[in-house]
């Protein structure tokens, strides 16, 4: 287990589309939570990797609400329990409005070397409508400060399919992002859960969302535009310059073991155990305090499920699936049985094979659920 995810469930304001676990917590609650994270890490001390952790990813919520001192305390605990590899990737998700130059300098000093900014859009009316607390100028300012603080690996998240969003606005957001001195862009289509404010509005018919075809055009445009702008796609929704693909997220798709700490965090352990933590703060805290794994769900994967994952996870990556390795492990019959389905997918222009690697085409990326459901 060389990949560590840490969930920080604190937010100043809940965004209108977000169904992720997050609270506006008091300082005291935050400290209680950090203590629980440290205790949870200790529960996994025996899973300590020989050569230390390769990545740590602080996700949220808004991890940038943690002070540098908090982060230092957590990192110390992780180093103590798991050890650190020589060249690590340590990512912190940040809201552009919550960071200052001093803060960024302080955390860079803790060897946090990758910053992921929730930019979302470059039009203030969209940001306001989404319930974001930042403005578009905050994104630019945050990137500049991050550079000055010594971050050379910076991601900006962008969202499409927003209510009333036009293609021109989406193009503008992409253009503004690529003009910034950053290394990585993630693009996400808006998906609403009924538990969110927007989700309720959608059910009540109060929200005008772009048509499916416009959404498809937006995603296709992003793939083509970002490629030209020097950010080739390496995963369904992720684009990076040169060697700046996110090592942490890539580990998910390569089916490496990873440990998730904190509320609602998922883990893959020992290659076949998928767990998900409690999302209720009190349940989580009391389980950890009792030296118990704070799992709400635990699934021991069958061989068939593992095979499914080994098929569909790598297909999300631009490098695709190594068919020879897969066939060697599971028998070439697996592919021959699916021949009819695969031919249909090839004919539809959704799948290709290049040098033995099975890959999604751009069109196939948009329809990846269809492709994967046909293959598993």
């Amino acid at each position, binding site marked *: 287990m060389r990949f560590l*995810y840490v*969930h920080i469930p604190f937010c100043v304001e809940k965004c209108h589309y977000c169904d*992720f676990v997050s609270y506006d917590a008091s300082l005291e609650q935050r400290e209680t939570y950090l203590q629980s994270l440290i205790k949870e890490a200790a529960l996994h001390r025996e899973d300590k990797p020989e050569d230390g952790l390769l990545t740590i990813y602080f*996700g949220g919520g808004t991890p940038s609400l943690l002070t540098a001192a908090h982060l230092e305390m957590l990192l110390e605990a992780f180093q103590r329990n798991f050890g650190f590899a020589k060249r690590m990737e340590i990512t912190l998700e940040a809201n552009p409005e919550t960071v200052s130059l001093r803060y960024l300098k302080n955390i860079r000093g803790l060897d946090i070397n990758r910053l992921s900014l929730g930019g979302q859009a470059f039009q203030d009316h969209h940001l306001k409508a989404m319930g974001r607390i930042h403005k578009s100028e905050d994104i630019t300012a945050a990137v500049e400060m991050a550079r000055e603080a010594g971050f050379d690996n910076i991601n900006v998240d962008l969202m499409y399919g927003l209510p009333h969003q036009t293609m021109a606005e989406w193009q503008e957001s992409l253009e503004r992002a690529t003009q910034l001195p950053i290394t990585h862009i993630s*693009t*996400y*289509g808006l*998906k609403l859960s009924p538990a969110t404010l927007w989700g309720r509005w959608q059910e009540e018919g109060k929200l005008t969302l772009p048509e*499916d*075809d416009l*959404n*498809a055009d937006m*995603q296709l445009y992003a793939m083509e535009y970002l490629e030209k702008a020097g950010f080739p796609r390496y995963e*369904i*929704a992720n684009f990076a310059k040169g060697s700046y693909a996110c090592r942490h*997220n890539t580990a*998910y798709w390569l089916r490496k073991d*990873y440990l*998730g700490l904190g509320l*609602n*965090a*998922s*883990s*893959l352990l020992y290659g076949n155990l*998928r767990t*998900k933590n409690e999302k209720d703060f009190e349940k989580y805290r009391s389980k950890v305090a009792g030296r118990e794994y704070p799992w709400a*769900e635990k*699934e021991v994967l069958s061989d068939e*499920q593992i095979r*499914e*994952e080994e098929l*569909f*996870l790598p297909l999300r990556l631009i490098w695709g699936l190594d068919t020879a390795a897969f066939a060697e492990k599971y028998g070439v019959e697996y592919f021959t049985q699916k021949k009819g389905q695969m031919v*249909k*997918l090839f004919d*539809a222009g*959704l799948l290709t094979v290049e040098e033995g690697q099975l890959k999604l085409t751009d069109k196939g*990326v*948009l*329809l*990846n*659920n*269809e492709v*994967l*459901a*046909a293959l*598993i």
Partner: protein
Amino acid sequence: MTEKMENIRNFCIIAHIDHGKSTLADRILEMTGAIAQRDMEQQLLDNMELERERGITIKLQAVHMTYEAQNGKSYTLNLIDTPGHVDFNYEVSRSLAACEGALLVVDAVQGIEAQTLANAYLAVENDLELIPVINKIDLPNADPDNVKEQIEEVLGIDASEALLVSAKTGVGVEAVLEAVVNQIPPPTGDRDGRLQALIFDSHFDSYKGAIPYLRGINGEVRKGSNVTFMGTKKTCDVTEVGIFTPQMKPVDCLTAGDVGYIAASIKNVKDTQVGDTVTDADRPAVLPLPGYRRAMPMVYCGIYPMENSDYDNLKDALEKLVLNDSALIYEPETSAALGFGFRCGFLGLLHMEIFEERLEREYNLDLITTAPSVDYMVYQVNGEIQHISNPSDMPEIQKIERLEEPFVKATIMSPKDYIGSIMELVQERRGIFKNMEYISVTRVMLTYDLPLSEVIFDFFDQLKSRTRGYASLDYEFAGYRDSDLVKLDVLVNGDIVDALSIIVHKENSYRRGRQLTEKLRKLIPRQLFEVTIQAAIGNKIIARESVKALRKNVIEKCYGGDISRKRKLLEKQKEGKKRMKQMGNVEIPQEAFMAVLRLDES
């Protein structure tokens, strides 16, 4: 049974659906002590789960009761239940034939409805003594005087003595029992004569085999008797004779006037056809009792397993279900689109729906059923005459000289305010007006000849919705007539999907074609390719729609590596695909095959 005939009364209850027949039966059972109230599940006579859910009676039952009348004598009462739905008219007529009298139950608010009328006529034809019972007098808007007038006006029966009852509260039920004793004549018959017993129902018992329900007309039957079924020519040894209390209770013998059952290790209810006569094999009756005919299917549809591998399971389920449903017929059929399945014939739409539900519920089968069709007569140019109940079997146009379709005589009763809406509906359905009669100041009875094929396509639902539920319908087969019909095919991406073909009247064909393609466009989900849907008559395309290709279906976000959720979503999507039928490259959902049934909905 050796009860004196003069102390026996055999009767049934006839009523329109929802007029309270089952509730009245419950009260009668309670009062005669046939069943304690605490043992009684709501409305005991309707004992199939589906019947209870739909509030209708499908299978007949018969109950033996003892009643101490006010005159001090003890009587045996046999209550024979009748189905309340038009699909089962023939079964109604057989249960009537087993009785000497009938309680004609009419709702004190609704008044006479189409099935009240149809069943009352049947009772009169069978020479039954009719006792009018006006039920639900406890309702605040009950109007018994008006209902009495209707009974006299429409049925020509003296209703001045009609009993006023609330089966719900029990008021007036005692008077009903007294009327049964005093007004209904005892059975007649020759107990020493040759055995003649009428089969008015049957059920299948997994231990005892098919159990025919009998009404003794002449002679007697005992355990050990060797009996013959005169219609089916089947002969067997009687292993048990009994009555329904309502549980099956063995007795020594059944004689003329009695109602009960026999068991004879009969393997199939088809051998115990309703209406058939049981006689003694060694001393047979000269003639069977009148009125026997095989149940005639009116509506046909194809039933296919969703998964081809379920074919044998479907076959087993059909074999088991027909054991208990002598009206159902089925034979194997093959469809290019749906694979191997069965063409099944039913008494009517309700019968069909109930049957499909039983297959899915009791046998856990996942089925595709095609749109229902009637049985057409095809007169070919070469002189051949063919019965076609599957539209895809229709010969090419140039081989057909003419076509005939079954018509029904439909009786509709409704408040007069809805005459306009009813006429409009019947017009759309090619109805031919026959008669209109006022049955009271506010209610009217309309008679039409209608093609059966139009009646089976949601006619009843439309009638109900256009009359706010007030109109009632009854119909009977009225023979075959010439019709200008064409076969309408549906092509999906250029290929005919045989299971979607329908036969329609030429005048309606363009409208139907347009409606059908539109409906299918809405039902067929977007897929990887554009899907074109065409309606055609012969080689001529008359309507076209397309389902645009699906462009986007992707889970992008991966919150903190939650892969399980992704895998579950994919598995769910894959499951969803199993609910579709693969046709070439196109996936067609189950509901599409029934689309034609709901064309008039938007």
